[in-house]
């Protein structure tokens, strides 16, 4: 989830903070101090996050495009100049553009807005933007909510009391609601000083930038892992079940499935699963090995050299072309697989399925998946030549069956022509003739289209009269029999118009001996 830091560089940020001490700070200095702390934390613990820095006043500027180079961000921050008045709407528009250009419109993002709470005056001020919200055309819409999901963290370099003396707090709250309600407004507690700004950014880090640590477990094989980016809580149905679901910190593998069987399933999000070294006594010394390791290796190298389950799992998943089904919570599953970034690099990845008992129709209910050893015979075959997947749906879809639709005249005409075509090839096509005839009959009965039944009966009778002398005698019998049956059905008489009833070929002396006629 990329982060955009939107830094207020308006003149009001240069307001000095009243302090008893010797040094005089501007609000901007406090803001920079707080952001430095955030960047340092990210460089240490949240290194893979892409972050961009945007400064704004009445205009906005992308100071640092999305990067993992936190030094670059830090440097740009310290070289930040002061500009004129605050105009948040334009800046938010800018953020929207930057985000979509880089990540498209589906990638969730975190926006850290750092401001002193002086949100401008007159046109372009937040107050003005919010007041005119409803009087805008399609082309001048307020940028919030963004097309992509966004968490908005507003870092106020001022305290709540100060914000409440004006309507700043109300406006910011309204902004947060507009953005979709995800996020929070942070204010400083007590006097404006380095300590309180640290406390405020500390809270932000706590809330949004703490690495997600978990234990990956496969029976007794385990590994401590970091899951990046942090899996977000998911809401299934805000009405029936309004409590968001969280990924558990114990990720339990329940079994394995071939990649072809899982078949590119839809996922909510993807995450790297990175093994981490937890400061524990290395007690994993096996039968007679690692007796005399060099003592002076750093912990990192030590960690690299002690076997880790993630690496084993990754290697085997890659070689076998399989995924591991992993349980994330009650009735919530995901999959682990090897993802190649390039030819050389590959990684263990985890994708989250939609929460629920049956996230993928072609797997069926996950709770009904069990070990192959419980099956009477191996469902994969002795030589892996078959597979129990995909699970067949209980009923067929319309495109997988012979559905009759006559909404367009051509549909009906085709069906009638099919019958006539076969009628002319009786008795060779007896079976197909009756099959098509019965299909038409069923549809006509269901649609209450008795007129059609009469019409087709007449057509068949006419065909009968048009039969050439060379025609097989059975043809005439079958045609008049079929015509008669259709006529009977068109009366609605329950004896002949029953839906499940089928017109069967007339048994004639000829059909029994059957010179070339297809048997029934």
């Amino acid at each position, binding site marked *: 989830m990329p982060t955009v830091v939107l830094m207020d560089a308006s003149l009001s940020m240069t307001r000095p903070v009243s302090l008893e001490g010797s040094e005089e700070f501007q609000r901007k200095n406090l803001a920079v101090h707080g952001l430095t702390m955030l960047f340092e934390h990210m460089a240490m613990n949240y290194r893979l996050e*892409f972050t961009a820095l945007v400064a704004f006043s009445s205009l906005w500027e992308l100071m640092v495009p999305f990067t993992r180079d936190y030094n670059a961000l830090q440097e740009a921050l310290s070289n930040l100049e002061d500009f004129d008045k605050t105009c948040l709407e334009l800046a938010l528009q800018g953020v929207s553009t930057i985000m979509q250009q880089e*990540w498209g419109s589906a990638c969730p993002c975190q926006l850290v807005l750092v401001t002193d709470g002086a949100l401008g005056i007159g046109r372009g001020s937040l107050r003005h933007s919010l007041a005119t919200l409803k009087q805008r055309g399609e082309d001048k819409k307020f940028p919030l909510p963004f097309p992509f999901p966004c968490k908005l963290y507003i870092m106020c370099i001022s305290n709540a009391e100060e914000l409440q003396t004006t309507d700043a707090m109300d406006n910011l709250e309204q902004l947060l609601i507009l953005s979709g309600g995800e996020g929070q407004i942070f204010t400083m507690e007590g006097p404006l000083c380095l300590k309180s700004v640290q406390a405020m950014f500390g809270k932000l880090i706590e809330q949004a930038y703490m690495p997600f640590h978990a234990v990956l477990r496969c*029976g007794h094989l385990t590994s401590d892992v970091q899951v990046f*980016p942090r899996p977000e809580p998911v809401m299934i149905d805000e009405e029936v079940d309004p409590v968001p679901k969280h990924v558990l910190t114990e990720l339990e593998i329940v079994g394995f499935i071939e990649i072809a069987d899982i078949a590119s399933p839809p996922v909510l999000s993807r995450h790297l699963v*990175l093994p981490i070294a937890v400061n524990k006594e290395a007690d994993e010394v096996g039968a007679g090995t690692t007796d005399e390791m060099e003592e002076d290796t750093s912990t990192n190298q030590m960690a690299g050299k002690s076997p880790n389950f993630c690496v084993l799992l990754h290697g085997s998943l890659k070689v076998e072309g399989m995924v591991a089904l992993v349980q994330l919570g009650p009735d919530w599953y995901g999959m682990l697989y090897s993802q190649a970034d390039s030819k050389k690099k590959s990684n263990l990845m985890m994708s989250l399925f939609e929460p629920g008992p049956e996230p993928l129709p072609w797997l069926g209910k996950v709770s009904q998946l069990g*070990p192959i050893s419980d099956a009477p015979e191996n469902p994969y075959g002795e030589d892996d030549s078959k597979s129990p997947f995909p699970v067949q749906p209980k009923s067929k879809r319309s495109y997988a069956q012979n559905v009759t639709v006559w909404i367009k005249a051509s549909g009906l005409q085709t069906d009638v022509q099919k019958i006539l075509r076969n009628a002319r090839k009786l008795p060779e096509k007896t079976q197909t003739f009756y099959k098509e005839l019965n299909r038409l009959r069923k549809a006509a009965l269901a649609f*209450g289209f008795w007129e059609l039944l009469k019409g087709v009966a007449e057509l068949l009778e006419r065909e009968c009269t048009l039969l050439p002398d060379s025609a097989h005698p059975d043809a005439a019998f079958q045609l008049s029999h079929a015509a008669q049956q259709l006529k009977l059905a068109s009366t609605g008489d329950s004896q002949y118009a029953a*839906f499940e009833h089928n017109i069967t070929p007339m048994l004639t002396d000829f059909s029994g001996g059957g010179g070339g006629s297809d048997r029934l």
Partner: protein
Amino acid sequence: MRMFSVSHKTVFVVDHCPYMTESSRQQIECDMLTKSRAQGVIPLAPVSKSLWTCAVECSMEYCRILYDIYPTRKLVNYIVSDSEFHILNSWRQEDQSVQELMTALAAVGPPNPREDPECCSILHGLVAAVESLCKITEYQHEARTALVDLADRVANRGRIICLTNAKSDTHVRMLEDCVLETIQEQNKLAAGSDRLMPIQQCELVLVHIYPQGDDTLVSDRPKKEISSVLSSEVHSVRAGRHLASKLNVLVQQHFDLASTTITNIPMKEEQHANTSANYDVELLHHRDAHMEFIKSGDLHMAGSTSRDSGLKETVTLKWCTPRTNSVELHYCTGAYRISPVEVNIRGRSMRSRSVLLEQPRKSGSKVISHMLSCHGGEIFLHMLNSTRSTLEDPPSISEGCGGRVTDYRITDFGEFMRENRLTPFADMSLDAAGRPPIERAKAQLERHTRYWPMIISQTTIFNMQAVVPLANLIVKDTMTEDDVLTCQKTVYNLVDMERKNDPLPISTVGSRGKGPKRDEQYRIMWNELETLVKTHVGTSERHQQVLECIIACRSKPPEEEERKKRGRKREDKEDKTEKNGKELEEKMWTQDSDRLKGAMEREKEDQSESEVIKDSPDSPEPFNKKPRLATEEIQPLEKSKGPVSLFSLWTNRITQANSRKHQEFAGRINSVNNKAELYQHLKDENGLDVHENGKATR
């Protein structure tokens, strides 16, 4: 994503009164005479559908699309109304299919034109529809039961689609009032019942159908709130294709559908085999499949065009050949069931498993945005991610924890994964302990991993073919008498190996110089085997028997060994060089040869060097870790002739690799210099020890 939104329950109320027998006046020529037979034949008069037929077939089409895209959870209740109401199906899932409704409709038949029009009214059906909406569905019941105290979170909403021929706008208002009144009455009734739920929200969609050529007596009216529970809209439509396209638009609105047209689908039919004929298919699906286009405002850029049905647009995507490889895992952000707009055109190619779809762009660049994929006869439109990944350029797994370890048991774990593959079981198939299949899968993983060393150099027994039968059986939940026997045989076989002083694949990785002595090797092996079996000893009496067998058969009690081992460690180190050589040479099952030893040792050194450089787990598994069980006959000959050739080194290596793939013949395992003695038991009975004599290395 609300489960119990208005579209959870849809009631169709179709007018079955005598006036519905009136012709739609849309004529269909079904006697298409072929030229050759046209002479002198009077063509059949064209047929025309009645208003009833039009209403029924369009409502069936609505249901077909609905059931294709939502096979469950979106329910239809079909009611026809004449002098009374006829309910054709229930809310139950098994009643939800087009076939079911068609059967019921055939039984009802077209309206009876001779029925007294005074007795007939659509009102009977509308009242029944409201009553039906109050009835609880199995999904509502399930959700309420699960929520217990919070059962009121389960909402009851629904939609009534009424297909009728109304007299006037006043008549329409009368119908609306009647529905509202009935809702109020029924809600009172439902409040006191367990099987009924009051209606919180009801959408009434009145479709007035009139014959072609007539003027309508009813005016269109957009959706309007009549009260807090009821909203109503009126559509006045001519029968025939206008009605069909109206209901097509409605089903899209009601179920959030959108349209995609797939172009460039290659013809597969024989008559087109030599041409490059292509065709198009229009599909409906949930509109989220267009999420990326909608959000980015790309809908027009993506080649969307207005369809003749008006209102809605279709997005054009191009069929890409060749098909995608099914073993590739695409990053897919959504998969949506589809329904073809015209079911008569059955895209044959759609039955193939997966096809990538390309979004045409003005710039001419190609973007694969979707994939059409068939799973068990159901076709899904997968939405693929085509934007930059936030996870790009991650640190490789080989750079992290455990990344420098080179001898993971990748192949063994692969085998483990195959054994722990999942398979679907029938609903409610619990085992004796009442566990659902997934819990049994977890339990199996637990059993199989009680003792599972991750790297080759941490284990001896898993590098030995001889242990395989026992290792496979001991993890089982229940062992048969035969299984126990097999395990015991395995143990006896190991005892035999020890007696013969067969070499073991003890790893020397991590320790300088040579590995431990032969008797030490066996002690390590026995200890490990005991560790494995001990983790399963609590499973059953029979598992216990296996452990007892091991304890009884192995040479020394483990405690004593441990003490000895510690005492001996120093002494071991001293003669490592010599021992290592011995071990290698013994692996070859040949007599002493300095040159061979040297060559092998060099090879081994090279190998261990390369191991350090290479990345795990992609590097090949280090060889030479499993016992050499067989050698070609030529080897002893080759070796005695002089320096070891590259060829013989290679042959050795291949032979060794091959030997790992099969279980060796018992005869060859027990053979000496590749000669197995027959009828050994006879000699044993005579008290002769043949094995010691045959051994040339000692």
